């Protein structure tokens, strides 16, 4: 039996009044690839951020190699051989890989030996089989490459414990398989791995032991020989009565229905000029019919945001045309588009979706403010009518709030998302454009949102579902279009879905 490498005892952490971790005991043994499994908001990242020194626990002790260790900052954890790859890239976009990896490490501060460090970095990346361009600015590299650089940065500063926080979020299937191979190399070279994920399938493929967390508590530590999908599902979701897939996503019933004869949305040869964060769009055409959920799969930053946005705001089009029910919307403002029965839930629900300080009622009105129903004498807002609509949204979409006057910022992420989607349903809806509607939400909310999308589809309307999670797309989409570098690479029917093939296409393969 290997010795305990990490032993967290009785760790508790609260953010304000919200209890994020409640008396956590967590053990990792030397040489493990240890899965830390739990759904969004279970407290996995919080626990690892405590181990890495970014957060201070309110209570509890950490033992490393049997020795009680106090970790006050990332500097302490790095000195103790802990390295962490965060869910959101923590590289400096303006710097090269070499410059990024050099940062912070010990030694001479008043000189800059880039050439020497470059050699050292190349050695490490060769040793561990993680290749990347060392002298290109980070902002020009893909998510998969950035992750390799972050891993090498941790190894460079001597990490013997590597924490990977949801490393597969922006990886496609082939890249995940590559990562699996690397993990085995790490273990051979004496590095222990903690692998944070909410996907059971990944844990089954990658890990030699698993700790399951739920709502800030550890459910159990499961050894390799006891690992089983059903067991993990049970531990992850407990009494919740949700049928899940191997990726720990809710199963959704997608009945065969007749699609409309004429397309609801026609996109004809559209192009959009690119910029720093997006390649734009290059000559894209597709049709969406009534009664169809049309998925768009892309690695973040390949033009998928442009697809969603240009339908709502066609003025960004450089060339081409967009038709809704046969009518061109090329010269329409967003409000004109909304008036045609289109609605939109943006990618960043907090920054782009809501007025943080506004009430639920005010937020529900957004986008509908010029509809006759909400106007008195064609000029003044009818707040009574608005309140009625807001109450409907709250009821229909299970928004957890005492009333419609509560300020939006006081809702949880899931409730904000429910309110935003509910807002889209306030007026008759022919086409819903939705971008990453489920990111970061717990399974019951994801299931709820999926069901609403399918309901809309079954009623004969259309959904344009832009999503970065291919597993989710494959569950609820009738067709999936793959976007890479602003170009449409292909459209798959449900019968043709192949995770590996679509994934390759997403990275340009």
């Amino acid at each position: 039996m290997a010795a305990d490498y990490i032993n967290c005892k009785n760790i508790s952490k609260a953010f304000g009044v919200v209890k994020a971790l409640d008396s956590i005991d967590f053990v990792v043994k030397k040489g493990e690839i240890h899965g830390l499994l739990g759904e969004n908001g279970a407290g996995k990242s919080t626990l690892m951020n405590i181990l890495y020194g970014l957060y201070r626990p309110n209570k509890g002790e950490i033992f490393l190699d049997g020795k009680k260790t106090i970790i006050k900052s990332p500097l302490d954890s790095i000195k103790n051989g802990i390295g962490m790859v965060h869910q959101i890239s923590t590289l400096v976009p303006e710097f090269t890989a070499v410059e990024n990896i050099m940062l912070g490490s010990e030694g001479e501060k008043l000189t800059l030996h880039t050439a020497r460090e470059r050699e050292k970095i190349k050695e490490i990346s060769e040793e561990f089989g993680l290749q990347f361009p060392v002298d290109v600015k980070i902002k020009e590299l893909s998510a998969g490459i950035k992750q390799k650089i972050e891993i090498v940065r941790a190894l460079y500063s001597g990490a013997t414990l590597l924490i990977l926080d949801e490393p597969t979020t922006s990886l496609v299937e082939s890249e995940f398989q590559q990562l699996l191979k690397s993990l085995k190399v790490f273990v051979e070279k004496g590095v222990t791995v903690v692998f944070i994920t909410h996907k059971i399938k990944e844990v089954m493929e990658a890990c030699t032991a698993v700790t399951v967390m739920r709502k800030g508590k550890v459910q159990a530590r499961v050894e390799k020989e006891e690992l089983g999908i059903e067991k993990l599902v049970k531990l992850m979701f407990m009494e919740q009565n949700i049928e899940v897939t191997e990726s720990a996503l809710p199963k959704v019933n997608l009945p065969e229905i007749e699609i409309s004869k004429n397309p609801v949305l026609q996109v004809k040869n559209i192009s959009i000029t690119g910029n720093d964060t997006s390649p734009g769009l290059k000559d894209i055409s597709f049709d969406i019919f009534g009664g169809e959920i049309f998925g768009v799969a892309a690695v973040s930053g390949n033009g998928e945001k442009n697809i969603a946005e240009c339908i709502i705001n066609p003025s960004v089009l450089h060339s081409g045309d967009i038709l809704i029910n046969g009518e061109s919307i090329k010269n329409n403002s967003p409000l004109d588009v909304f008036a045609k029965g289109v609605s939109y839930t943006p990618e960043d629900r907090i920054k782009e979706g809501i007025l943080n300080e506004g009430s639920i009622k005010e937020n529900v009105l957004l986008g509908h403010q010029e509809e006759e129903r909400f106007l008195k004498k064609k000029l003044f807002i009818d707040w009574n009518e608005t309140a009625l609509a807001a109450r409907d949204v709250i009821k229909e979409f299970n928004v957890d709030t005492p009333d419609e006057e509560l300020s939006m910022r006081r809702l949880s992420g899931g409730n904000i998302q429910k309110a935003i989607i509910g807002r889209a349903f306030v007026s008759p809806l022919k086409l819903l454009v939705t971008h990453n509607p489920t990111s970061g939400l717990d399974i019951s909310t994801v299931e709820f949102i999926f069901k609403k999308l399918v309901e809309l589809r079954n009623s004969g309307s259309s959904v344009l579902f832009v999503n970065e999670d291919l597993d989710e797309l494959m569950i609820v989409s009738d067709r999936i279009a793959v976007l890479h570098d602003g170009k449409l690479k292909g459209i798959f029917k449900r019968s043709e879905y192949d995770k590996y093939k679509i994934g390759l296409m997403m990275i340009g393969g």
Partner: protein
Amino acid sequence: MAFITSFIESVLVYTTVYTLASLGILISGRTGIFNVAGEGIMLASASAGFLAAFLSGSWLIGFLAGALMGAFFGLILAFVHETFKVNQFILGICLVIFGSGLSDLLYKLVIGVRLSAPIAPDTLRITIPFLSKVPIISGFLNHDVIVYFMYAATFTAWWFFYRTKIGLETRAIGENPKAADVVGINVSRRRYLATIIGSSLIGIAGAYLTIAITKTYSPDISAGRGFMAVGIAIFASWKPQRAILGGFIFAFIEVMSFQLQIISDKIPYQFFLMLPFISILVIMVVFKKHIEFPASVGKPYSRE
């Protein structure tokens, strides 16, 4: 030739003010602290520096007092921002008002009202053998010690940011404080240091106005130059080597506007006083595409 040389000489005097102040602003800006309090710091340091120089009879003590006053402002700025996460711009404007009030108050408390204005002691002049006699070049090299200090400060700042690891780390904080934090760099401490060091440079620029240029104190002596320095730091894309260039350009425009006031009797002199401010607007618009900002400048950072 003599005219050009003496023209350059006067330009260099103001280049010193602009460059030191904008260096001070860009140093903290590189860690994400946008110090818009430059005007207030210059005013307070102009007053404190002058008083110290006058009372002690030593130019050196005067400049040290100016730097110290700047450091004090930097400490307030960093402390209030890091502790209470107050918006940097609001904080900066408050410090401008504070500095402006403090400068007059200090002077009145110490000197009061006099018929003849008190005069500051002469600042040490350094001439370089031979070179200080060559026309035109001597315009750059026939100066008091603070001008040479400005040259050295610019070079040191460039060397620090682009030739040392600690400088690379400092730039990283300005781009992405989280990236610096996760590799074990103490973001808050670096922000304190940069703001305090930067503000003392602004303080020296302020003291230079009273001790070396006018040799006496008068209210509102910096006359918007602290704000111009913010503009120069932006124009310079927060790079020291470009700050000295920007400093020179605006000093050139300012000195030219003095000359034009004397030459022209048709156009009201207020028009020429306005020139530097108009030119910074024009230059900002023209160079808009070449201006880069550290990504995190102006934004507070906290882990949780």
